[in-house]
């Protein structure tokens, strides 16, 4: 079947907070209804659903709650937040293959007020089997028990290799908080920070990450709706094309604790998604007007910039310091404030912002967006104008 047929026709979200005061199922339903309403559709139109691991919602519960007649397609991508954009790939594949006509992708979690993500996972005795990763057994017994420590192990090698320090991360954090400061939906709306604030924040994993290198813990939900382009003509919003969407599980790669690839300073999964996307779309790094890059920690922005070819390996710190990721830079990054500034909805809020940027309706709108990259590490997509 010809490419470019699946399009994103709706996005929806709840408020982003530290205590939603309601269930994760309710958050999911609110965001899905908002996305359907944005599109001009109702639950009666939905026959496909996709999310990714570490979401506590079951499709059967959402079908029951929303009054969906039947799902002919349902999937759960692996790899936690790294798999976020895999939902776009699955939705695209389902719609273009005829498995479903209208697919909803979602993420809904109270990951601040309930099970805190940034806290120790020492009690995660389940070993996270089936959750898209196999690392727990090799980390927890050594006291490597938080996402910050898991990621810092790789990041320390990167800093050491290129002669950088934690201070080189400050411009990333300052940029994302500056974007959030003018985004009313952001938790850190009107709260920009300075390099000094970053350097004065306490160590989380020394000498790699300070508090202001870490994404937030957030309560909230985001959803999107995918259908065929022909159907989109009758709907409320101008459709956003999925030029291509892909996943990556390279040899010897691992979710979060990516320690076994030969060169841990190279963002192997991001290199793989970029290769696939560029081959399939003919789009290259110079063709993007905006990039939504998964920032669980500041270092991830460096990794994404290098893996996707916006700068060369080892040059990301200079690239960021010289303002290239700002709104008037060569590749504006996450104008919603990303996970550090807006909220940590595990990449799903980055997808929503990518859609807004292509539509031209974002708060911090980049001029004339033809292509937006949305990259979560083990999954990524090129969105564009129809």
């Amino acid at each position, binding site marked *: 079947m010809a490419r470019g047929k699946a399009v994103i026709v709706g996005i929806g979200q709840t408020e982003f907070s530290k205590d939603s005061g309601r269930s994760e199922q309710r958050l999911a339903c609110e965001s899905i209804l908002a996305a359907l309403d944005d599109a001009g559709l109702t639950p009666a139109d939905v026959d496909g659903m996709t999310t990714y691991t570490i979401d506590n919602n079951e499709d059967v519960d959402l079908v029951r709650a929303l009054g969906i007649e039947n799902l002919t397609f349902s999937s759960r991508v692996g790899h936690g937040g790294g798999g976020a954009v895999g939902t776009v790939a699955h939705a695209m594949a389902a719609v273009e293959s005829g498995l479903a006509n209208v697919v909803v992708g979602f993420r809904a979690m109270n990951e601040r007020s309930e099970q805190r993500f*940034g*806290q*120790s996972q*020492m009690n995660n005795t389940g*070993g996270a089997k089936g959750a898209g990763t*196999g690392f727990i*057994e*090799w*980390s*927890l*017994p*050594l*006291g*490597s*028990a*938080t996402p*910050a*420590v898991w990621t*810092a*192990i*790789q990041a*320390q*090698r990167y800093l*050491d290799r290129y002669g950088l320090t934690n201070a080189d991360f400050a411009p990333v954090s300052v940029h994302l908080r500056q974007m959030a400061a003018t985004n009313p939906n952001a938790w850190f709306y009107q709260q920009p920070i300075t390099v000094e604030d970053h350097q004065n924040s*306490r*160590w*989380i*994993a*020394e*000498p*790699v990450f300070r*508090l202001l290198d870490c994404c937030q813990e957030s309560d909230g939900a985001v959803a999107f709706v995918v259908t065929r382009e022909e159907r989109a003509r009758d709907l409320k919003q101008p459709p956003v094309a999925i030029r291509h969407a892909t996943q990556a599980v390279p*040899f010897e790669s691992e979710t979060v*604790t990516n*320690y*076994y690839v030969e060169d*841990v300073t190279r963002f192997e999964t991001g290199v793989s998604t970029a290769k696939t996307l560029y081959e399939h779309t003919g789009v290259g790094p110079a063709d993007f007007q905006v990039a939504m890059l998964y920032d669980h920690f500041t270092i991830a922005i460096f990794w994404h910039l290098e893996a996707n070819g916006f700068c060369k390996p080892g040059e990301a710190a200079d690239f960021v310091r010289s303002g290239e990721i700002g709104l008037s830079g060569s590749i504006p990054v996450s104008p919603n404030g990303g996970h550090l500034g807006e909220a940590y909805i595990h990449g799903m809020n980055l997808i929503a912002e990518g859609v807004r940027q292509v539509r031209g309706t974002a708060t911090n709108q980049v001029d004339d967006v033809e292509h937006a990259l949305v990259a979560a590490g083990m999954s990524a997509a090129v969105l564009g104008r129809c």
Partner: protein
Amino acid sequence: MSDVKSVERPAPPQGSRDSAFFWEGVGREVLLGQQCTGCKRFRHPPRPLCPHCRSFEWKAVELSGRGTVHSWVKPIHPPLPMFPEGYLVALIDLEEGIRLLSNLCEIEPDDVENGMSVEVFFAPTRDGGRIHQFRPTQEARRG
């Protein structure tokens, strides 16, 4: 590291059917690696077959216990009271060509350098278990 603290450390896992040999070895203070019988390559984390020659035949072989620091970090927050004060987490490149996460002990963070030579030792955990640890070799200490 203080003995009082170290015996509070969580006991290591039993492991899966594919990895149990590693933890069984650690329990008796032997660092074991999974070596392919076909092509002799070592692999970690453990898996049922060799990804290079696809042989399911392998042996648990005692490793030299020597290696170098690939990277390291000092976890600060949240505190984990069951671990020794100021403990370091380090990724170790073992001589046999595999990489293993562990703790780096008997050294101040300011003195750690990627590439420095380290050797294995074993620390007690809760329930009479053992856990693999690394410390600078004598040569590294003198250097």
